[in-house]
């Protein structure tokens, strides 16, 4: 499909919702180069900042130091977008379908309020992964975010539906005010996970420090978790058999909220 290479290191952020496979479909290279971007406070064209070439694959590939390029893959609906390096804030925000693969780190608000599709981040994610924008009642609603590294604060906060899997550690308030959906954290959970949790599931594979408003229920093998892990394995996310077949301690909470949510903690014994 199309390859984009950033021409130079950006001094100020470049904002563009143009970089999606949907936007490039059925457009000539000249038309793609004419798509609008905002550089600092100036309106410009995509071609001013990127070398644009066709490639032999079905993917859109973006190269360069994109840590200051915001909204890559935002609102995309289909296709595959590969970012070869770091990406800036709001990557895949409000996306509805397709797949984004980021081979480096991503900034804050990646997958914010997404409604479908898959984001696979091979590095670290910033704050507010899959979160709701301020003032908005709901965050991520359907879709999958896979983060191979660490994630910042408020990962999955106010999530309504969907699945977030984080291989590394998370910052504070992971899954805060979760409405539903599932967050798996294979590293260490930061402080106050699930604060204000209504429904939904946070799965901790390392012993977390829980708020006192979570009540212990039992140790058991949740059948649905196998379903999710099976799905993750199918997406190329390896999961150890001990997690797959293991016992989990169930805590109901947050009892200051609806209290119909849960934190499942992998039981090593």
């Amino acid at each position, binding site marked *: 499909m199309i390859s984009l290479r950033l021409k130079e290191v950006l001094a100020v952020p470049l904002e563009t919702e143009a970089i999606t496979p949907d936007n490039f479909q059925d457009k000539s290279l000249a038309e793609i180069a004419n798509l609008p971007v905002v550089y600092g406070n100036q309106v410009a064209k995509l071609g001013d900042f990127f070398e644009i070439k066709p490639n032999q694959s079905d993917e859109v590939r973006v190269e360069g130091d994109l840590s200051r390029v915001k909204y890559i893959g935002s609102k995309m609906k289909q296709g595959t977008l590969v970012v070869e390096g770091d990406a800036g804030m709001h990557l895949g925000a409000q996306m509805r379908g397709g797949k984004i693969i980021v081979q480096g780190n991503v900034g804050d608000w990646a997958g914010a309020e997404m409604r479908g599709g898959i984001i696979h981040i091979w590095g670290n994610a910033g704050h507010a992964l899959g979160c709701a924008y301020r003032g908005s009642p709901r965050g991520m609603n359907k879709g999958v975010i896979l983060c191979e590294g660490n994630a910042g604060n408020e990962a999955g906060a106010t999530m309504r539906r969907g699945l977030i899997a984080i291989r590394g550690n998370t910052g504070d308030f992971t899954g805060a005010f979760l409405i539903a959906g599932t967050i798996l954290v294979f590293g260490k959970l930061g402080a106050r996970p699930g604060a204000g949790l209504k429904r939904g599931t946070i799965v901790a594979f390392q012993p977390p420090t829980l708020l006192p408003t979570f009540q212990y229920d039992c140790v058991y093998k949740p059948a*649905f978790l196998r379903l999710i892990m099976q799905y993750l394995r199918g997406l190329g996310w390896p999961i150890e058999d001990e997690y797959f077949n293991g016992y989990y301690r169930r805590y109901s909470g947050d009892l200051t909220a609806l209290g119909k949510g849960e934190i499942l903690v992998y039981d090593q014994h």
Partner: protein
Amino acid sequence: MAKYYNGVEIEDTFAEAFKMWGTRVIITAINRKWALEAATKMTGFATSVIGCKCEAGIECEVDDTPDGRPGVSVLFFTPSKDDLPKRIMERVGQTVMTCPTTACFNGLDAPDKMKIGGQLRYFGDGYQMSKYIQGRRYWRIPVMEGEFLIEEKIGMQRSVGGGNFLILGENIEVTLEASERAVEAMKKVRGVVMPFPGGIVRSGSKTRSQYKFLIASTNDAFCPTLRGIVKSELPEGVNSVLEIVIDGLDVAAVEESTRVGVMAACIPGIRRISAGNYGGTLGQFQVHLQKVLGEEVLT
């Protein structure tokens, strides 16, 4: 014209099969034993719609299940689209949800769906939780043993019921052996079940009776003990007849099942393979024995 396979006469006739609605349910459990236990209970007393309201059977064991545990695939059939959800609800509720460690999944990717987990969830009395994974919703119903996991919707499709063939043998021993061989071969075909005990029926019926309160009665034309007093269909030397009834998710599966079953049943001591029909007046499908076997294998 009669033709022969392996020395057994294949009568130039057809099985008359009917439109039904069918579904496939996957039951998983902690191990094979408990998956089979639930599947056996769920498909129990489901031999004929005449007396059981549905027909069902175990299709096969499944390794590649949604939750990665040992599983069993079962097929269910009812005459009407409205009946199928009722029967599945009753049976999943009473035989699968009650069985330790089981989970229940949709096994049929079809546009028509029935809400099963979406109804059974109310057993959770408000404590049920849902999970939406890969475009499918699942319900987690808290039970004393832990949690019962069931998919919200299960697919259903137009299907075929009442495929059949009759094995006419010299005595019960050889007829039963031929029937068992046929069923074993037919179990390898996907999309079909043989709903009767061991897949075999000894009391085939006709659709009338001298008693007004009965809609079906014994198939006297194939009863060896009545050969001398009714218009018998039995050739000389036949002293026992067994029938294999086939329900399938489509006609092709029923035909393939008939083909492998008939071929397996043609052993020494079997005189004829026939099939039950109503002259083509009632059923929507006709499975012609000679046609499904193929001219090339018949002499």
